[in-house]
């Protein structure tokens, strides 16, 4: 079954409080190589059947209207996997 993957990230200019908490926790576990973390979201939209251009357009539209809030987030990727 093909899936459309949508990746959403907080906008670069917005401080990501969750990412900040994670970067603070990493060195406590000995992971000292990472200077910054930003946490985003991955959505997997399952499609029954073939992913047409129209369906992909719907996914992009859903990504912009529901899956992300353009005030604070960017849709950084919309792609088909497992086709």
């Amino acid at each position, binding site marked *: 079954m093909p899936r459309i993957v949508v990746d959403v990230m907080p906008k670069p200019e917005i*401080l990501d*409080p969750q990412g900040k908490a994670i970067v603070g926790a990493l060195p406590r576990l000995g992971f000292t190589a990472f200077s910054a973390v930003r946490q985003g979201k991955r959505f997997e939209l399952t499609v029954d059947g073939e992913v047409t251009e129209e369906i992909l357009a719907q996914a992009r539209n859903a990504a912009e209207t529901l899956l992300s809030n353009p005030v604070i987030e960017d849709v950084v990727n919309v792609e088909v996997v497992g086709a």
Partner: protein
Amino acid sequence: MTELPLIGEAVTADAAGARRLAGAKIGVITFPGTLDDRDAARAVRLAGATPVELWHADTTLGDVDAVVIPGGFSYGDYLRAGAIARFAPLMSKIIDAANSDARLPVLGICNGFQILTESHLLPGSMIKNDHLKFMCRDQILRVENNTTAWTRDYAGGQEITVPLKNQDGQYIADEKTLDALEAEGRVVFRYVGFNPNGSRRDIAGISNPAGNVVGLMPHPEHAVEAGFGPEIGSGTEGLGFFTSVLNKIVGDNK
């Protein structure tokens, strides 16, 4: 429930006046996960109006004169706080009514504020508190704009104390939007003494350009009866929201 409507300006406290007040219907919408709808309805009643229960799946607003979108965790705050509630059937009616010539007064409290930003009735957005913790405290606010539908019973610059309780309460918007909000007098409330969540420019609440839509993170509906509200101040300093809108409704319908 109080017998005496706690309102003065628009009507005299005679029987006919009280009937007019009680004739004002203020809807309180409930989503799955809403918590503060009962308290909001109670605040409406204490102010002298009649609360009307609204359900998110309703397709009509009925004949309500104003709407309160209360706090809580609609849809468990899944996706983003307020994001799914924004697409509830009743929300599109509320958006239309708020933008119509009639300018339906709409108050969004806490999660209701988040729903109003997700609905684009108000600009900006809320993200997690900068300190990452849920916070509950009595919060002092300054009324920066007392000309909105929900703040006209306050004095300009008046300081009020109401409870604040949230996790995603950090108000953010880009600098241009913040400058515009300031220039147009649409910053309605600011945190005083302590910024509890990292909100830009200490903003606690804002309005739309017409002033009929107001959103804020703190909870005026929890400060409407002495002995049950904050210990700082009178404990009833949130009641002015509800008497304000009631004065407006009764005044407009005179």
